[in-house]
């Protein structure tokens, strides 16, 4: 089990009702964590909609998670 810090922005913050949470998970990669949280919150995003940041840098979905990581799922961006 791994303890992680998740931060939510924009549409995911609205979907979860949280700006951040700390959770304990059996998910080994960011991708499996995304599926776990999709089950929990029923948000309307798929894996292809989302990019993943771990400790404030973009990382591939199959990146292994480590104790204490800060994970952010990035919904489609709309700057500019």
């Amino acid at each position, binding site marked *: 089990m791994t303890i992680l810090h998740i931060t939510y922005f924009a549409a995911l913050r609205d979907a979860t009702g949280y700006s951040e949470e700390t959770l304990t998970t059996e998910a080994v990669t960011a991708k499996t964590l995304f599926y776990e949280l999709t089950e929990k919150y029923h948000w*309307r995003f798929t894996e292809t909609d989302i990019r993943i*940041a771990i400790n*404030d840098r*973009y990382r591939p979905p199959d990146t292994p998670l480590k104790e204490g990581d800060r994970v952010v799922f990035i919904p489609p961006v709309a700057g*500019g």
Partner: protein
Amino acid sequence: MLFQLTDRPIEPLISSLHPHTGAIVTFEGRVRAVNDDREVSSLEYVAYPELALHEGHAIVSEALERFDIIGACAIHRTGHLVINDIAVWIMSAAVHRKEAFEATEYIINTIKARVPIWKKEHYSDGETTWVRCDHCANPHDHSKQSKASLKRKRYATR
């Protein structure tokens, strides 16, 4: 500073920037009153600041490497903006205008595709929605899409 986020008006920041030399191309992205045939009353920009600053700095650095320019910088607003406010401001300076135009376009396209900033539109009827622009994920698609197909999608979160 190559890339800044600010929750204050951009206009005063521009006047303090020192133009380097030669051709200078600036781009201002402004809040417009209509999007997808809906009357927009205001916009709210939210950023993931740690990653946005990292990516924004990287994008301007890439432009400095890829194009024959002397300098470049970009500023993006966060917070609540009203119609005609500047949302993003970009400057590229070069000896010749071609490189400055190309670098400025590269920076705005890449900011829209990569920098974690989100935009919530507030409409005059009181509704709000987070905007998504799928084509922004690949800025090169913009030039290939018809105007109609570039319409932005809206999405509900529940």
